[in-house]
């Protein structure tokens, strides 16, 4: 059973600051996804990474998949209040349809 640990659990920053959140596991994943969830809504897919060392950018968000495909990071540049939410990582194990989610990082960006 692969477990994903996300850190930090909570993060509160001022608008304009940069931040990085992490997703770590002892297991190898065939792919890893990041989602953002707002209160009262379901998670929304931000990105999927599949290749070790892969870096993807989505405007001010940069996602990196570790070389060994066991970990990932999400970096946000110049955070804005609209970035506030719960950020979830999810990893697909060797068996298809065995996606496991981390507990999330709850980010608050203050104006």
């Amino acid at each position, binding site marked *: 059973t692969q477990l994903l640990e996300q850190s930090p659990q909570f993060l509160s920053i001022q608008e304009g600051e940069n931040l990085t959140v992490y997703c770590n596991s002892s297991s190898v994943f065939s792919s890893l996804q990041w989602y953002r969830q707002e209160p009262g809504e379901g*998670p929304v897919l931000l990105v999927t990474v599949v290749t070790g060392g892969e870096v993807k950018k989505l405007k001010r968000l940069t996602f990196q998949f570790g070389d060994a495909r066991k970990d990932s990071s999400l970096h946000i540049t110049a955070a804005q209040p609209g970035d506030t939410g719960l950020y979830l990582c999810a990893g697909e194990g060797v068996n298809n*349809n065995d996606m496991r989610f981390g507990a999330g990082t709850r980010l608050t960006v203050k104006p």
Partner: protein
Amino acid sequence: DAGITQSPRHKVTETGTPVTLRCHQTENHRYMYWYRQDPGHGLRLIHYSYGVKDTDKGEVSDGYSVSRSKTEDFLLTLESATSSQTSVYFCAISEFGSNYGYTFGSGTRLTVV
């Protein structure tokens, strides 16, 4: 234009009663999933379906059953609700499987009293 809707959005039920949650999609996606979300646990897979009448168990399937008689509908049934099943339930769909990412519904908040 949601593509996936869950009903009801909120429900309060008594211990021991059966409860059915519905997930409806208009995307014609093959795969459908039921997750529950609890504080500190993230999202945990209950059951999933890879086609009409084709379903399989997930990580936390005890006390739950599912049915998929049509491509667009995936039903989750709690046979006899318990307080430990108080949670937020999310349905998700995927065209090619979980490896390619999910589209989630807005969730059903279920309280068992």
